[in-house]
């Protein structure tokens, strides 16, 4: 047989196995990503969906459930096989986790019940009937309440018990109560807050004057007199506003709802504690969808409550956003300038190569090390000096001498700068030589050529670097814990109060929020859905930031496209 | 698109016109000198030959330069080749005029006057018309005109033969000096050759225009 024929009949060409191998690598990657995203999506989103509340009937003699054997109502949170050891004893495999709410009455919101403790139907399956007419209340304290409404008692003495009227009055009262809440928060936060800050500045002025003139002379000086008068006027205003707020508060406190729990006891709940109510078993599908969307919106736009396990995560979203933005603003110019020098000006030799390797290796330093550096350098050294120089009157209260959004951003910028430098260097070297030569041949100096031609042309590549840096920075938690992130920030780093941007403020961050919910929360069952929802949001935020950078990059690419080389 | 060096092609073309006109003019002067027994015209015709020769060299040179430097293709190449060939034909026509003039001069210096001009006038009119038309057809790229010329050559050939017979018979009857007759026969032959060159030129024009 001729030799050549042999190679044609070979079934498996050489190297084909490698193609399978690469394909396999990709599929594993895709599978992991899809799996992870799927879990996060499902768990994150299910938190917003109004679950059906079932009546859970327990078998005779059972001691399970929130009230030791009494029937109760709850949503099924989980069904799973029991731990092996117990299962072998009982010969049963399954247990349920119910969400029964009413933490104030039951002590905890989630309860595990073995399947054999639940009354079964003809087929032997556990019998769950939707609890008709059950009301789910979202409360400021103690989490959700589940129960059947009995009566509403208003501050003016009226009581409503008739079911239909009660339903209408319930929603109306919640709405009114929320309006009152808004009004008095506005009074307390905005107006009284303004008065407070004015009083504070008067106080500081007084102190300065006293120091200047001496204690005794100050008392008689006209300036102090005037300040005192102003202070008195403000005090009067304050009293007035405070009274108004108190009245509204009082009113909210007095309205109340009487609820019968599925376990039999009755509880009276003040409307000041209720933020929202719905009848989960009576909702139509569109109603549920509407509720679902509304819950998502509330989650994104409201502040957290109850040690972060309830309410929304708006401050964390905002904090993450502002921090990432500040980080980008810091890392961009720094990284780009460094890369320009490295690539364009430095004589390419041993030293530059060493610098380049060091920069690349910086990306591998554990992020907590950056946190420590940020704390030591930015917070204590830089922040401390700034405080001494500019904010000495506030000492010993630190302004910049403690963690804050600025220091956190700078720390992350430092951490991500290698990414930007590497990407920028790539982008610079990818600019066609012809373009540079053309600029130089036109009589441009080197800097002019870089500034006017090379940099714009490499902008898409530089932005890619920024995208990577942002993705890394936005998801980072460890260093932030040292340089300014907090569990609960009293105010946002950006607001309507002069000077609007408060770089010294501490802030909340989605990544840290996740950590806090998952590991620091008192009720981990209650926090679990929040963990997923927050993770989902962090991912969405990173995607949104990246998408906007990618859009800009594509726009630039189109602009600088063309087949020049 | 017209390229700047197409101007050079135009120059070759106009030199071609010039050489054509000169050849025709030389022929006309030579024949008129013969018919009118005008020695002066004859002398002028003799002199023109050098100019024609120079022009041909110029055309050849320009054509070779154009081919070397401008890398012409298609109709431009054909034009160049036709220019080389046509200038050659025209130069030969000029040579014929030169020889007519020289022979006329011999007759005139010997006899003082041309006694029997036979059908030279009519024949030369035909031949020069052919030559003019050939040049016109070249310049105007007139295919029909060029194709017509080829047929017209027959008439000139016929008259030439007639002239020959007439002169030959005369020579047989008249026992005297027959050298004038011989020279007249040669003059007639030269005119016939001019017509042949015209025909050649026409054929080249046909080649230029059709590529066949």
């Amino acid at each position, binding site marked *: 047989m001729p030799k050549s024929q042999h190679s044609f009949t070979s079934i498996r060409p050489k190297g084909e196995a490698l193609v399978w191998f690469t394909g396999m690598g990709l599929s594993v990657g895709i599978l992991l990503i899809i799996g992870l995203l799927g879990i996060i999506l499902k768990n994150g989103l299910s938190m917003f969906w109004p679950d059906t509340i079932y009546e859970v009937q327990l078998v005779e003699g059972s001691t399970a459930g929130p009230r030791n054997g009494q029937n109760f109502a709850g949503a099924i949170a989980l069904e799973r096989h029991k731990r092996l050891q117990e299962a072998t004893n009982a010969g049963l495999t399954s247990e349920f986790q119910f969400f029964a709410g009413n933490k104030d009455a039951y002590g905890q919101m989630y309860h595990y019940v073995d399947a054999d403790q639940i009354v079964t139907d003809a087929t032997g399956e556990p019998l769950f009937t939707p609890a008709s007419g059950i009301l789910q209340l979202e409360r400021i304290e103690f989490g959700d309440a589940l129960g059947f409404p009995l009566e509403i008692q208003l501050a003016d003495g009226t009581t409503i018990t008739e079911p239909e009227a009660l339903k209408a009055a319930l929603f109306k009262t919640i709405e009114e109560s929320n309006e009152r809440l808004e009004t008095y928060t506005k009074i307390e936060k905005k107006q009284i807050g303004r008065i407070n800050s004015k009083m504070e500045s008067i106080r500081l002025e007084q102190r300065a004057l006293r120091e200047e003139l001496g204690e005794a002379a100050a008392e008689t000086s006209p300036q102090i007199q005037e300040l005192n008068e102003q202070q008195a006027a403000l005090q009067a205003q304050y009293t007035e506003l405070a009274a108004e707020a108190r009245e509204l508060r009082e009113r909210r406190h007095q309205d109340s709802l009487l609820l019968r729990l599925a376990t039999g006891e009755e509880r009276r709940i003040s409307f000041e504690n209720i933020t929202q109510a719905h009848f989960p078993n009576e909702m139509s599908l569109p109603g549920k969808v509407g509720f679902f969307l509304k819950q998502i919106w509330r989650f994104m736009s409201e502040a957290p409550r109850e040690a972060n396990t309830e309410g929304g995560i708006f401050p964390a979203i905002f904090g993450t956003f502002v921090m990432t933005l500040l980080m980008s603003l810091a890392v961009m110019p720094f990284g780009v300038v460094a890369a320009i020098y490295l690539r364009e000006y430095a004589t390419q030799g041993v030293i530059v190569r060493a610098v380049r390797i060091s920069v690349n290796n910086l990306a591998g330093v554990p992020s907590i090390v950056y946190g420590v550096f940020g704390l030591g350098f930015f917070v204590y050294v830089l922040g401390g000096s700034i405080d001494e120089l500019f904010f000495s009157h506030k000492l010993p209260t630190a302004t910049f001498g403690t963690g804050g959004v600025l220091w956190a951003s700078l720390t992350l910028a430092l951490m991500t700068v290698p990414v930007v430098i590497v990407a920028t260097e790539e982008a610079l070297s990818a600019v066609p030589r012809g373009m540079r030569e*053309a600029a*130089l*041949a036109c009589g441009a100096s080197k800097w002019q050529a870089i500034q*006017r031609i090379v940099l714009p042309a490499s902008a898409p590549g530089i932005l890619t670097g920024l995208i990577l840096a942002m993705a890394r920075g936005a998801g980072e938690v460890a260093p932030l814990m040292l340089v300014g992130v907090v569990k609960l920030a009293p105010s946002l780093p950006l607001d309507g109060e002069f000077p609007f941007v408060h770089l010294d403020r501490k802030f909340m961050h989605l990544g840290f929020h996740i950590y806090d919910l998952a590991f620091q929360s008192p009720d981990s069952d209650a926090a679990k859905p929040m963990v997923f929802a927050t993770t989902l949001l962090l991912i969405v935020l990173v995607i949104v930031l990246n998408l906007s950078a990618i859009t800009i990059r594509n726009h630039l690419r189109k602009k600088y*496209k063309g087949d020049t080389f | *698109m017209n390229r700047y060096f197409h101007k050079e092609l135009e120059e070759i073309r106009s030199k071609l016109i010039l050489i054509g006109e000169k050849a025709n003019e030389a022929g006309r002067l030579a024949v008129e000198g013969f018919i009118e027994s005008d020695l002066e015209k004859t002398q002028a015709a003799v002199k023109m030959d050098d100019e024609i020769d120079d022009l041909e060299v110029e055309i050849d040179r320009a054509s070779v330069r154009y081919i070397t430097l401008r890398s012409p293709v298609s109709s431009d190449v054909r034009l160049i080749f036709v220019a080389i060939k046509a200038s050659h034909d025209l130069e030969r026509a000029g040579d014929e005029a030169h020889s007519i003039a020289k022979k006329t001069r011999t007759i005139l210096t010997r006899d003082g006057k041309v006694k029997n001009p036979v059908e030279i006038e009519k024949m030369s009119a035909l031949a020069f018309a052919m030559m003019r038309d050939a040049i016109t057809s070249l310049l105007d790229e007139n295919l029909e005109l060029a194709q017509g010329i080829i047929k017209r050559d027959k008439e000139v050939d016929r008259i030439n033969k007639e002239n020959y017979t007439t002169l030959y018979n005369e020579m047989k009857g008249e026992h005297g000096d027959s050298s004038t007759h011989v020279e007249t026969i040669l003059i007639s032959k030269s005119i016939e050759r001019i017509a042949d060159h015209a025909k050649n030129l026409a054929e080249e024009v046909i080649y230029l225009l059709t590529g066949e």
Partner: protein
Amino acid sequence: MSQTPETTNARADFEPFIQIKDNYNFWYGSTQVLFDMNLDIPEKQVTAFIGPSGCGKSTLLRSINRMNDLIEGIHHTGDITIADQSIYDPSLEVISLRKRIGMVFQKYNPFPKSIYENIVFSLRIAGRNKKSELDEVVERSLRGAALWDEVKDRLHESALSMSGGQMQRLCIARAIANNPEVILMDEPCSALDPIATGKVEELIHELKKDYTIVIVTHNMQQAARVSDRTAFFYLGKLIEYDVTDNIFMKPSNEQTEAYVSGRFG
């Protein structure tokens, strides 16, 4: 072999504008690529550099506006003068030298900017930003590059939206925007189709009324068509330099003859 007589012979009959003289030698690191060059280029004429690949045409061309300075480790001996001024004169800045010399590259390389901005680039970097002046320069340059009628309605569109031939003419327009004395072209048509090539050649023929042009080309027909004088290089040496007619019709050197007749190598 008799090289020197031919070159010196060709030198006598005109006033040189660019002079490569004093046995110009050029090295990339330790590799010498140009050997003992002496070459006088006339004003307002087209001079073509031809020769096989790697013979140093581009190197010599890029020496004239000192583009080679960008490469590390180069050095030279000898001198190049433009209008009797040495380009290596320490008091002469490279930037101002390049402003006097326009350059057109093998591959059209417009900036990723608008047509307008491409042309005024050299003015803007010199700090000349007056609108009326820029407008005037744009029109003059585009007309000079025979491009005005084609693009006058889309001056502010991206230059990258043009055809290859248009882009190359834009690069020529950019090169003449600053009113240079010399235009250097390194294989300006090698990326263009015959029609675009024809247009550029036509343009070169027009431009030589105002500018001294030096063009490197691999296309011998092109050298024959556009140039007034032609220099043939081989292995870094100037083999023959003469008026184009002589180089192509009766070269005195047999290597030249072999090269132009395609019998080389």
